């Protein structure tokens, strides 16, 4: 089997598996919507206040939703042994791991983009910043999956990996949060956001190239 065929086979397999267990798609999405609904309840429904902090709320919630969904990335494959088979295959682990991360993002990251406009309306965000919000989510959530994969790969062998995972992953999410949140805020004020978007693209490219390496190394360590 050629490398590209193996790559797409892994993506297809993970997508089929996810479609058969739809709760995995729905859970992070519901969480995302619920957290954002809680904010107006917690701080009061003043439109100005909500509008001012909307980019931050949406991005922090996206961060948390991405983190919560991470566990499903390698868990079931680790439990039933198919992860071990994948590491034993002649193809480079980094490529197969990248395929798994992409499939995971398609299942858990992409749906956030679909509900984000609705939530933007909830929080009264100005219409002209909606495009920037979607663009930052499109560029930022794959980075969250890629960086998060490192944390999951390190903790997948542990019985209680949940708490430690947030400690490992959230500090590394900071740059994405800063640039994405700021871009949406600036777009709301009608300012140019090229710089932030360019930096997000740079971070995404760097994560795409670099993240699979520690993920592969950490998986080999966890399996051993």
């Amino acid at each position, binding site marked *: 089997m050629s490398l590209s065929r193996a790559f797409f086979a892994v993506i297809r397999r993970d997508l089929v598996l996810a479609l058969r267990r739809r709760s995995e798609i729905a859970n992070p999405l519901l969480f995302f919507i619920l957290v954002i609904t809680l904010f107006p309840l917690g701080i009061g429904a003043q439109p100005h206040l909500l509008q001012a902090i909307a980019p931050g709320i949406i991005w922090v919630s996206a961060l948390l939703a991405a983190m919560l969904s991470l566990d499903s990335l390698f868990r079931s494959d680790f439990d039933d042994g198919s992860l071990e088979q994948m590491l034993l295959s002649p193809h480079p682990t980094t490529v197969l791991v990248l395929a798994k991360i992409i499939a995971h993002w398609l299942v858990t990251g992409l749906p956030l983009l679909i509900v984000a406009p609705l939530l933007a309306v909830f929080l009264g965000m100005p219409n002209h910043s909606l495009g920037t919000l979607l663009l930052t989510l499109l560029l930022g959530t794959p980075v969250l999956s890629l960086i998060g994969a490192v944390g999951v790969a390190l903790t997948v062998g542990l019985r209680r990996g949940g708490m430690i995972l947030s400690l490992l992953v959230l500090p590394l999410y*900071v740059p994405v949060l*800063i640039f994405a949140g700021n871009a949406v805020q600036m777009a709301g004020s009608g300012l140019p956001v090229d710089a932030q978007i360019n*930096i997000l693209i740079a*971070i995404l490219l760097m994560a795409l190239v670099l993240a699979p390496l*520690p993920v592969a190394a*950490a998986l080999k360590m966890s399996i051993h």
Partner: protein
Amino acid sequence: MFLIPDPVVRFFHRMASPPHFYAFTGRLMPWLVVVFLLVTAVGLYGGLYLAPADYQQGDSYRIIYIHVPSAWMSLFIYVVMAVAGAIGLIWRIKLAEIVAISSAPIGASFTFIALVTGSLWGKPMWGTWWVWDARLTSELILLFLYLGVIGLYGAIDDKRTASRAVAILALVGVVNIPIIHYSVEWWNTLHQGPTVTKMDKPSIHVSMLIPLLLMAVSFKFYYLIAMLQRARTELLLRERNAQWVKNMVSESK
């Protein structure tokens, strides 16, 4: 490897052997402590007594003799940890792994000290315990990174596996630290104008600078002492079934 002189290579090869490392650091320790005490005494005397008071901040600036070296150490130790971790990961040298994990709690302590002293200094200077200043914020995130390393090591039962996990995490962190640092700096300059934090930094006078550098050296020695002490304990713990440890214990009885 041809660039490194032969005795140096031999030295490192011998240091990779646990009994040799244990004996050598045991002999080295008193000297390190003596140097540390001397440098600290001179540095503190210079900083707290000889150096003049600042014309703006009075005596409260003197906290920099603890604060600044701690902040330097917090980054320095993380880099040491990542380098030692990488050495352990690549050449499977047990001692490098031990040095890496022994560094983590010390680095976290220095980061914590830098945060606390910064906050203590900030109260009279900025009028508040905490501002979301770029440096304070990235120091706080560095503390979280350290805690992640310590937590991960504690969570994995097999200590060799844990060491490899820590090494991978430290390497990922070391790539991310500059990105986090600059993004936080950039975030801060956009969110909050240069009102409080950007006091004009006067170039520091020599009488203040020399004690500061001495304190930085003293902190390096403290780190070396504390790290070696932790490493020696960890080494005994991991090698408790090895013959050389048994010999040593039976001899000392």
